[in-house]
């Protein structure tokens, strides 16, 4: 992912700094940059969030929308479960290298990472609750992410945004009733209640994990690598940790080298420490963001607000 070209002197400066526990922006090895979170700004989606990592408006920026859809069950699919499907796209405006097909590999890697974290029972979401009628219909949650800006540490920001979007997701209520058909057999039918006030949150969304990406630089490692640090990273691994401190997924990213096993074990331990702090921070930020979006105080002066005032 090294798009930034650094001189050998700069590379050496960053590497040795990290080995001594110093980083160019004054952070400690396991400190993350500022995070800002905004929720529910896409009115057409069932849930949405935007997460930005970085200082002073410069940073990685990811927008996630969750759209729920009722799908008819077909043979071969699990009978009594819903599904979560993820897709990540890096906007060509985020970096020059993303132009044309330049982002293809990264899109595949991030989509699979998100899928690995959210796409199964390991996500904590109660997939059974997403089933409407077994062997007939179920909910599919489309988690679509758009990476708007890249300044290091995409995976962590992506999972933050996805977690916030899923936590803010509200599904329409579904009424299931049994009806007798012509032959007198009982058939289940369902109705989606079309009332924006009558919606339910996702079950188990509080158990969603957060991801922490570790970048090995020199003989040590850091979390939330900046763009410069990304350019000298030798190996990168993303660890997803649930609020119960279980490890939900581990995936190594593109890199030139591998980890010594001892360092890997150390990283897995640090992952829990970092995730514990991150989850607390997430809770505060998410509460603040939801309060803001509920009161509408954060509404920017967009065209729609102008139309509203006229």
């Amino acid at each position, binding site marked *: 992912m090294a798009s930034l070209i650094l001189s050998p002197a700069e590379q050496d400066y960053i590497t040795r700094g990290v080995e001594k526990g110093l980083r160019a922006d004054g952070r400690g090895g396991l400190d993350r940059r500022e995070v800002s979170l905004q929720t529910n700004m896409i009115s057409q989606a069932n849930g949405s969030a935007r997460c930005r990592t970085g200082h002073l408006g410069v940073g990685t920026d990811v927008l996630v929308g969750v759209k729920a859809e009722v799908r008819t069950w077909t043979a071969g699919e699990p009978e009594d479960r819903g599904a979560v499907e993820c897709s990540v796209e890096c906007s060509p405006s985020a970096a020059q290298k993303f132009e044309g097909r330049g982002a293809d590999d990264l899109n595949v890697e991030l989509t*699979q990472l998100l899928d690995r974290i959210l796409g199964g029972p*390991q996500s904590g979401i109660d997939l059974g609750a997403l089933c409407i009628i077994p062997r007939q219909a179920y909910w599919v949650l489309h988690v679509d992410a758009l990476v708007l800006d890249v300044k290091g540490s995409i995976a962590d920001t992506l999972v933050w945004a996805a977690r916030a979007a899923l936590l803010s997701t509200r599904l329409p209520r579904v009424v299931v009733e049994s009806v007798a058909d012509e032959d007198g057999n009982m058939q289940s039918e369902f109705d989606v209640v079309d009332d924006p006030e009558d919606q339910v949150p996702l079950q188990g969304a509080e158990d969603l994990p957060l991801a922490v990406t570790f970048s090995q630089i020199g003989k040590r490692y850091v979390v939330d690598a900046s763009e410069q640090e990304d350019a000298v990273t030798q190996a990168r691994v993303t660890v997803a940790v649930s609020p119960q*401190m279980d490890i*939900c997924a581990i995936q190594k990213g593109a890199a030139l*080298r*591998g980890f010594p096993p001892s360092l890997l*074990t150390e990283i*897995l331990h640090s992952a829990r420490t970092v995730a514990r702090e991150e989850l607390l921070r997430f809770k505060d930020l998410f509460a603040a963001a939801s309060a803001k979006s509920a009161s509408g105080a954060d509404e920017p002066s967009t065209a729609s607000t102008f139309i509203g005032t006229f």
Partner: protein
Amino acid sequence: MATNIMDRRRINGPARSVEPLYGPGAAGADPFAGGRADGRGLDQVRAIYMKTGPLSGGQHEPSESAASGSAYYEQGRVRVSCAVYGPRQGRRSNARMGVFDCEFRYAPFACSWKRRSHVRGADEKEISLMLEHAVAPAIRLEAYPKACIDAFVTVIESDGKAATIAAAINCISAALADAGIEMYDSVAACSMGLRGAQWVADCCQAEEDAAPCSMLIAHMPSADEVTYILQHGKATPEQTDQAVQTCTNMCTRVYAVICRCLQASLE
């Protein structure tokens, strides 16, 4: 119930076809009931057979279009074949380092469930990337500026996804050695599945389907570096720690087998 995409360059069947419903068979049964189906121990990897050069060398001198290096790898019912081309001219002529590219494919009949479409699936693209990430750290790419090394992997038969990826990594690593590409070390990979609180080595498909979590590790024993790690599913931190350790040790055992095969191919 996927719809086959009509392609004039292929012989097309009906627009839609499905697998028949197979009557009550082994499906649903616990694959671990009464030990493992094939009688292996919990930490036992399926028998490995490997041969280098089946695609490049042969009964007589190789032709111009033959691969620079190749390998065939078998682990139980997992069968993988790989051909390596290169170092050959790269697409970027000013690159300081060589580029390692990998293309992973399943043969249409490789999986025990539905026939795979000829169109390259998202999972094949993902696995291609994973293989690149797992094997590239072993190659001295700085020794091949402006060049590219391509690996083409075809799965002839698959039995357990994680095990198939591990087999592909081992196969590529051997094919690279056969092609005479400069490497720090051979990469050996191994997979495990979680069964209750216990890790079970090298799961076959039925075992993998029943396991809530799988772990895949690629390791270079001499350099002592983990070049790839993938955990799919949930496990407690203690289980993960244990898996990293056990899996790394198993990789070392697989590595010994690979090295023996490579030595045998030189004699």
